């Protein structure tokens, strides 16, 4: 690209936010979104704004684009200095809407979190790539098309000519995010604002997108404002870091200053809550997260006197789950999605087995199949010797007492119209285990157990935070004294500090009650913290399984290595310079009727450490 000279780093900031204050109109009067926000970005620099939900990081980025006004917000005070291409210094907060439109998309590009919804579903990729060019540069349709093609090549999308004619739903998530980036880069902006651009993506795709942003920055010399909640991504991307909390800037500094000598208490807490991949090297048992002792809990300790070989609780043998693909007038089955294919593993009493993999790998279906929330197609699930897959509905109901599930979204898994006490009591009532005063005692005891005050008993779900709600979901799962809890991405929707507390609670419950967990997660760093055993899933199969130390420290399957390699590490000194590769198209597990895939055959590479033989 050609703007290198203009964007050249002469030290003067391209963007200088000074004392920004944004208010939102509500029925109860104005509410402050952010206040006293000040920071600057120089050309060629990446500044990361990091914070948890409600910190005001997105409000800040939307204010710079003046998009906050469309959401009922108003810039009440402060200056957003921006140096234009022609060298003039302007205050973005002062521009008229028409003047601002000329800056938006032309000199400042923006990319958003959700590639699935960021593109207009009814327009072709070409139309969406060209309309900005036509609006800002007055290109002819033909010239705009040529430029669009160039942009798709620039973001390394395979078969760019074909993509131009396609609609968004025909592209994968990673590919769509590349299109969104191409759109933002269309007019060669001097500043790129990336608002959680990889949060909705799988870790391998995230690595690709981060590498792409870095390459584009290098080649064009543009400045990047990167908004994220993920400290690991900050460590990998940032030159300088702005830490935000509840609408205020807490701390600003270079990435090494922030990570190695944080000054503020909040920054320290935030950093402590982030599990770092590799920090469990050489430690066989799971360990609590530091600095998050729940009130009244015991000092962190590991029970050393474990029996050499713990009891087997659940043994899954050759489990397969297929979903029919239906079409035609009578909705006949025309193909099958092989969501889970010949999967075998064992969960030991009092231990955690983690299923890791990317979206579509079949890890959630696997968890649901074990509880028969989804009917498995074949295979056995032996719970202490009896085969769950064969039970009639009456016997299944009894067995479900021993297995409970905690889901990802604590907003969706609690009934908004019922008091929390009633929801936690429900499974107990369901099985007729207690009534009256005894029931109340048990429910109150469960609230104590998960660290919720008893005053919450009479509350409704909307009165609680996300982390508190997830505690209620765990209390409900504990109500029947289960032997196994299946936690399906149970901490993925939580802020890191809350995530750390919930993880500690789960480990505490395991130590105290001898619970087993099937921990389904995409987050390798969290999995490293909590697991005894790990199984890596890819396209419905377990490709590698074994003790956590073996899988993490001696990964044998290429996919396990790719996965581990793609995880950003929350340490700016362990930066991985990654080559920016072309976007890949992922294979799909849809097979025609009657297709019988080969059985999974494993090679034992170490004690209990199995790798699939292709």
């Amino acid at each position: 690209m050609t703007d290198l000279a203009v964007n050249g780093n002469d030290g003067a900031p391209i963007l200088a936010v000074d004392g920004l204050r944004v208010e939102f109109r509500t029925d109860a009067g104005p509410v402050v979104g952010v206040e006293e926000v000040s920071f600057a970005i120089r050309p060629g620099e990446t500044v990361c704004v990091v914070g948890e939900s409600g910190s005001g990081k997105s409000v800040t980025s939307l204010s710079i684009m003046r998009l906050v006004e469309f959401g009922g917000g108003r810039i009440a005070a402060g200056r957003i200095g921006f140096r234009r291409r022609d060298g003039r210094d302007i205050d973005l907060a002062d521009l008229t809407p028409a003047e601002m439109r000329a800056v938006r998309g032309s000199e400042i590009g923006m990319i958003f979190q959700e590639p699935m919804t960021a593109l207009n579903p009814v327009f072709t990729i070409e139309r969406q790539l060209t309309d900005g060019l036509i609006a800002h540069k007055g290109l002819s349709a033909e010239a705009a098309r040529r430029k669009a093609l160039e942009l798709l090549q620039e973001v390394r999308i395979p078969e760019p000519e074909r993509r131009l004619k396609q609609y968004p739903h025909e592209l994968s998530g990673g590919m769509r995010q590349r299109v969104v980036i191409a759109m933002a880069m269309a007019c060669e902006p001097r500043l790129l604002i990336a608002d959680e651009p990889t949060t909705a993506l799988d870790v391998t795709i995230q690595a690709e997108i981060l590498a792409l942003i870095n390459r584009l920055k290098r080649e064009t010399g543009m400045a990047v404002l990167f908004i994220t909640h993920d400290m690991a991504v900050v460590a990998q991307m940032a030159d300088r870091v702005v830490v935000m909390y509840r609408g205020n800037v807490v701390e600003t500094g270079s990435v090494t200053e922030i990570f190695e000598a944080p000054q503020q208490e909040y920054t320290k807490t935030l950093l402590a809550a982030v599990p770092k991949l590799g920090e469990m090297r050489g430690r066989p048992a799971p360990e609590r997260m530091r600095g998050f002792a729940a009130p009244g809990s015991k000092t962190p300790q590991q029970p050393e006197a474990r029996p050499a070989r713990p009891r087997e609780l659940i043994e899954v043998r050759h489990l397969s789950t297929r979903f029919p693909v239906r079409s035609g007038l009578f909705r006949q089955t025309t193909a099958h999605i092989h969501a889970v294919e010949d999967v075998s593993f064992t969960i030991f009493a009092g231990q955690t087995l983690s299923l890791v993999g990317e979206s579509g790998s079949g890890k959630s279906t696997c968890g649901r199949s074990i509880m028969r929330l989804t009917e498995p197609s074949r295979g056995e699930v032996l719970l202490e010797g009896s085969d769950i897959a064969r039970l009639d509905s009456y016997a299944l109901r009894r067995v479900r007492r021993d297995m409970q599930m905690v889901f990802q979204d604590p907003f969706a898994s609690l009934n908004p119209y019922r008091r929390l006490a009633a929801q936690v009591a429900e499974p107990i009532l369901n099985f007729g285990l207690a009534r009256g005063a005894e029931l109340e005692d048990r429910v109150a005891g469960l609230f104590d157990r998960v660290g919720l005050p008893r005053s919450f008993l009479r509350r409704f779900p909307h009165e609680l935070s996300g982390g508190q709600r997830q505690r209620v979901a765990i209390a409900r799962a504990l109500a029947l004294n289960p032997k196994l809890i299946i936690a399906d991405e149970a901490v993925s929707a939580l802020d890191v500090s809350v995530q750390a507390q919930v993880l500690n609670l789960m480990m505490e419950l395991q130590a105290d009650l001898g619970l087993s967990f099937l921990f389904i997660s995409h987050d390798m760093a969290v999995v490293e913290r909590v697991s005894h055993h790990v199984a890596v899933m890819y396209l419905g199969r377990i490709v590698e399984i074994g003790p956590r130390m073996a899988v993490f420290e001696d990964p044998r399957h290429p996919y396990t290595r790719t996965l581990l390699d793609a995880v950003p590490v929350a340490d700016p000194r362990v930066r991985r310079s990654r080559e920016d590769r072309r976007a890949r198209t992922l294979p799909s597990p849809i097979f025609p009727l009657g297709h019988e895939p080969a059985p999974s055959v494993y090679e034992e590479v170490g004690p209990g450490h199995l790798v699939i033989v292709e």
Partner: protein
Amino acid sequence: MNYVLNRLLSMLLTLFLISIITFAVTNILPGDVALMIMGTQSNPEALAGMRQSLGLNDPLIVQYGHWISGMLTGHWGTSLVFKAAIGPLLLQKMTASGLIVLMSMLIALTGAVPLGVWAAIHRDRWQDTASSSAALFGVSLPDFFWGIVLILLFARTLGWLPSSGFVDPGTDLGGAIAHAFLPSLALGLGLMAHLTRMTRSTMVGIMEQEFIRVARAKGLRERAIIWRYGLANAIGPVMTIAGLQIGYLFGSIIVIESLFNYTGMGWLTYQALLNRDIPLIQATIFVIAAVVMLTNLVVDLLYVLVDPRIRLG
């Protein structure tokens, strides 16, 4: 193509079920065709003879077989009231009512889409309140109320348009439209109110989508964002809802056509019901059902044109 075939097949299946229900229900009605032809004063022997010759003493299943094979081969029988072949009669009345249904739909959409979009982009401000109140007013009042108001205003006071009668569009298209206009407007106003509300809520949902924000971040004009990005996504759902209202319109024309003395399907249905003209009632229900289903098939096919995500198959 496969999809259209599938849809037509399932339509035939539905029509078959409708034919059974229609036939069953009209046979439960008190009185029979023989009685309607001969009159209540006729002597019992002649009545019995008539019943025998009409096949009314056959088992119901046999009667149904006769009727449905007649319908399928184009022998729709003779109307008892109009003493005319049902087929040509229905065709003529369907054309008359088709004009009204089409015009009222056009009137409703031309008003509802801009109004709904306008309300949506001024969400929670006075424009929205005004439009919502007007729409609520519109849906709350029955069609014939608007009919009366329109007759008083445009026919009596201003004298611009005829208040009653029907002109065949084949002989005088201008006259036909003039005569169909007031009944169409009476039907269209209520429909417009309904569709305005639907357009508004669809548009409100769409304007909150991320791709609208992305379009703004590209620096596009707000007008282009609303009328191209927004509306292109709203048109499909609004069209579907409009299509579903066709059935409702065929119900409403019974009152409206009688009010305007417009001799279309509605007026015909009313006459058939009033006089227990059973063959005509059966054929009318059947034809209206078929037309409603066909228009909805057309709407669904049009949906494919506005939304590439819908795959037919």
